[in-house]
C-alpha cells in the first residue's frame, strides 16, 4: 500500500500545503503589521507592568501624579488661565486641603485624593477645552474637537491635562514610551527617514533596553555615571504604586557597597520584564493562532484548495505528479530557509555579535513557476464554467448544464451550450448576485462537493509553512531511501583535499 505513488502524492500535497502556508504567513504578517498587533500586545504588557491595573476609565489616580507636591502648589497659587479655571471650580472642603499644603513637605493622602477629585471633575467636563486654556498641547485643535464631538471627552481631557502639567501628571508607561531609547526602536520609514506613519510604539523591546530606560526614568535622566544608591533613592521617591513596590522588592538584598550592585539591579529588572513578557507572548500566540485559522480558511476557499481533489489529480496523473515532486525536490534542496547558521570564521567558536546573513536567506517567496503549479491544482475555473452553463438557458427554460447532464442534442440545447462555451470559465462577476435563482443552486452544487477537502486543506494550511517544510523534508528523506537511479547519490561524505 505504501508504494511510491502514495508517497509522491503525499510529497505533492506537502509541497502545495507549504506554498499555501507561505501565502497564509504573508497575509498574517501583513495583518499583524497593519493592525500593529505586536506593538499593541507589547504595549499592553508594558502598561500592565508599569501601571497599576487599569480601572477602565481615564480618571487620574494618585499613582498618576508624578509630582503631587508641585501640582498642589500650582493649583493653589498658579496664575495660568487653566489653573485659575480649575481653582474656581474647587469644592470648599478640597480647596481647604489643597491650599493648606506647605511646599517641600510630603502631601498627605487626603490632599492627594482632593487633587485627584478636582482634576477628575475636569476630566469629565465636556466644556473644559478652549484654545487659550491649553496653549501647550500635543494634539491639533481639529483633532481635539473631533474627539470631543465623538464622545471621547474623558480621554481627550486627560491627555490635555497631561500636556498642560507634563512634569506633574502622567504615567510611568508614557514616560517609558517617550524615552529616547525606546523611541529609537520605532521602525523608520526608509524613504522619508521618519517614523513609519501611525507607528507609535515599537513591536520589540530588548530586556536590556527596557531596564536601562526604566532606570533612567527613575533617576530622572540624571547625567553622568550613576550608582545603585542613586537608583534606590529614585525608586523611593516615586509615588506609591504597585510599580514602586515591585521595584523595591527587586532591589531587596542588594548590597550597595558591593561592586556590581547596579548591574545586579539592572539584571533583576531585566528578569522582571522577561517574566512579564512570557505571559504576554503566550497571549499573543493564542490570538494569532485564531487569526491563522481564519486566514487559512479564507485562503482555502478563495483559492478553492480542495485536498481531496488535489490528491485525486496527483494520483491519476503521473506527469503532473512528477512535475510537482520535481518542484518539491527543488524547493527542499534550495537555500536553507530564513537563516544561515554556520560559523563564518573557523577560528572563532564564540563570535561576539551576530552577523546578518540576509543574503543567504530563503525569503519565503513563491516563484512564478510555483504559482503556475498551484493554479493547476486549485482555482475556481471549473466551478465558474458550471455557473455559466447554469445561467445560459434554452427557450424552454432548460439550462445548458441540464443539456450537458442530459446529453441532449436538440437545437435549443446546442444554442445554449454554445453561449455557455463563449462564457467559458470566466468569472461571472455581478451575475453571482443578480442571478439569484441560479446562485443558490450553484452553491448547492459547489459547497458539498468541496466541503471535506476544504476542511482538510484549512487544517493543513493553519499548521504553518515551517511545519510543512519539515514534513516535506521528512518525506523526501523517506523517498531518498528508495531513490531512482538517475538521482545523484545523497551522502554526507565529501573528499577534502
Amino acid at each position, binding site marked *: 500500500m505504501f508504494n511510491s505513488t502514495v508517497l509522491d502524492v503525499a510529497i505533492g500535497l506537502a509541497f502545495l500545503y507549504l506554498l499555501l502556508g507561505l501565502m497564509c504567513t504573508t497575509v498574517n504578517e501583513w495583518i499583524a503589521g497593519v493592525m500593529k498587533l505586536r506593538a499593541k500586545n507589547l504595549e499592553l504588557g508594558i502598561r500592565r507592568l508599569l501601571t497599576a491595573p487599569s480601572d477602565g476609565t481615564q480618571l487620574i489616580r494618585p499613582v498618576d501624579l508624578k509630582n503631587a507636591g508641585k501640582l498642589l502648589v500650582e493649583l493653589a497659587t498658579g496664575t495660568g488661565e487653566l489653573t485659575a479655571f480649575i481653582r474656581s471650580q474647587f469644592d470648599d472642603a478640597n480647596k481647604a486641603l489643597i491650599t493648606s499644603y506647605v511646599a517641600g513637605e510630603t502631601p498627605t493622602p487626603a490632599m492627594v485624593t482632593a487633587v485627584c477629585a478636582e482634576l477628575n471633575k475636569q476630566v469629565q467636563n465636556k466644556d473644559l477645552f478652549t484654545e487659550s486654556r491649553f496653549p501647550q498641547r500635543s494634539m491639533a485643535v481639529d483633532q481635539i474637537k473631533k474627539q470631543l464631538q465623538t464622545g471621547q471627552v474623558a480621554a481627550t481631557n486627560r491627555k490635555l491635562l497631561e500636556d498642560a502639567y507634563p512634569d506633574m501628571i502622567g504615567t510611568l508607561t508614557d514616560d517609558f514610551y517617550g524615552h529616547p531609547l525606546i523611541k529609537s526602536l520605532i521602525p523608520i520609514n526608509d524613504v522619508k527617514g521618519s517614523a513609519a506613519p501611525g507607528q507609535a510604539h515599537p513591536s520589540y523591546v530588548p530586556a536590556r533596553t527596557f531596564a536601562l530606560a526604566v532606570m533612567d526614568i527613575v533617576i530622572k535622566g540624571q547625567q553622568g555615571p550613576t550608582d545603585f544608591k542613586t537608583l534606590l533613592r529614585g525608586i523611593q521617591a516615586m509615588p506609591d504604586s504597585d510599580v514602586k513596590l515591585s521595584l523595591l522588592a527587586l532591589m531587596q538584598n542588594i548590597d550597595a557597597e558591593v561592586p556590581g550592585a547596579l548591574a545586579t539591579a539592572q539584571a533583576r529588572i531585566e528578569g522582571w520584564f522577561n517574566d512579564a513578557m*512570557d505571559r504576554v507572548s503566550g497571549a499573543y500566540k493564542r490570538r494569532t493562532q485564531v487569526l491563522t485559522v481564519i486566514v487559512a480558511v479564507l485562503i482555502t476557499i478563495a483559492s478553492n484548495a480542495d485536498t481531496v481533489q488535489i490528491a485525486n489529480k496527483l*494520483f491519476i496523473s503521473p506527469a503532473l505528479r512528477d512535475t510537482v515532486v520535481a518542484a518539491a525536490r527543488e524547493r527542499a534542496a534550495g537555500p536553507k530557509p530564513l537563516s544561515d547558521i554556520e560559523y563564518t570564521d573557523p577560528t572563532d567558536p564564540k563570535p561576539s555579535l551576530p552577523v546578518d546573513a540576509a543574503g543567504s536567506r530563503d525569503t519565503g517567496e513563491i516563484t512564478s513557476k510555483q504559482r503556475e503549479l498551484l493554479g493547476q491544482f486549485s482555482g475556481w475555473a471549473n466551478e465558474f464554467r458550471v455557473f455559466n452553463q447554469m445561467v445560459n438557458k434554452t427557450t424552454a427554460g432548460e439550462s445548458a448544464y441540464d443539456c450537458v447532464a442530459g446529453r441532449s442534442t436538440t437545437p435549443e440545447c446546442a444554442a445554449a451550450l454554445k453561449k455557455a462555451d463563449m462564457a467559458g470559465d470566466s468569472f461571472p462577476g455581478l451575475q453571482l448576485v443578480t442571478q439569484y435563482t441560479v446562485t443558490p443552486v450553484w452553491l448547492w452544487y459547489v459547497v458539498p462537493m468541496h466541503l471535506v477537502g476544504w476542511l482538510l486543506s484549512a487544517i493543513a494550511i493553519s*499548521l504553518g509553512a515551517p511545519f510543512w517544510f519539515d514534513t516535506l523534508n521528512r518525506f523526501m528523506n523517506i523517498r531518498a531511501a528508495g531513490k531512482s537511479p538517475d538521482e545523484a547519490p545523497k551522502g554526507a561524505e565529501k573528499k577534502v583535499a
Partner: protein
Amino acid sequence: MKFLPAAGSALLIVVLPLTAAASTLVLKNAFIEKFKNRVTIDSSFRIDHVLPKPHPIGSGGDDGDLHMSGSGDTIGLPVVAEIVNAGAASQLALTQKAEGDDGKTVKLSGAWRVWFEHPPGNGGSQTQGEAVPPSDNSNPPHVFEVHPVTSFDGTSILKSFDQIPKYMAYDAATAFGEYEKLTATITANASATAIDSQKAGHNYAEFIIELGGKPAAADDGGLLVLAQVFQDEETTVTSAPRRMVFTAGTSAADAVKSGKKGDRFHVLGIPRVNLERISFATHQNPGKTFTVPLPYEMVIVAVLP
C-alpha cells in the same frame, strides 16, 4: 471508487506528520545567553529516581552510563543526569551511593545537554520554569540532561571522562549522517525561545577532528574549538566545521588545549544543541518563526588513542 486512493493519501498527509510531530522546548533567553558559551552547569538536583545499576556495556544505548531523574533550580526542567563509565572502579563507590539517594537534593555539576532524545510524546512541550513533578522512573520524557556529570554531591568525577572500555560507539558516518538531517523550527520573543525538533538519537560517536584554530576559553574555563569532522583520514561527514566543547580539568581538554590549526584528534563525543547558534539565529530573526538545520555541537568525552 477512484477517490478512495486519493482520500487515503489525503488522510495520510494529514495524519502521518501529526503522529511524528516535533516536540518543543522553551528556554528562557537569559538562560541561553548565560550558557551558550559554557560547557557545564552547576545546580541543585532533587533526585527522583536512580537506575538500580549502570547500563550494560555493548553498543548503542548499552553505554555503561548511570541515569538519575530529577530537577534542578538552575535548570527548571525535567532533568536526567548521567554518569559516564559508572561501573568503573573510580566511580563505583559514588554510583552505589547515588543508588540510595532517591528523594535527596544534592549539588550537581556537569555538561549541560539539550538533545531531543527522549522528548515528551505527541508533539508535547517542556517549558523552562514550569513546576517539575517528581518522576517515578529514571528516564522520564526529557530534553535536558546533565551529561556527563562532573561532580556529584561535592565529589568530583572528572576522571569518568574517559574511553568506555569495550563499548562500540556509533561510527562517524552513521551518527553525523543523522545529526546533519535534523532540523529545528525556532520562535523567539523578548524573553524566551521555543525550539521545535524531531526525536534524535545516536548518543556516543567516535570520530576524528581537525582543529580550525587554537581552542578558545569557554566562559566556565572549558575549551571551545571549531573543527572539521572526519570519518577516517580523508572523508568528512559534516557540511561545515562543527563546534567541539571540552570540559575543564578533563584529560581530553588537557590533550587539546595547546592544539593549533590542522591538528587532528581521534575522539569520543556526544551531541547537544548549540545554544550559541540558536542565539545567533534568533538575533537575526527577532520575533519570527524560522526553520534551520538543528545547530549542534559535540561534548568531547575522551581523546582516544
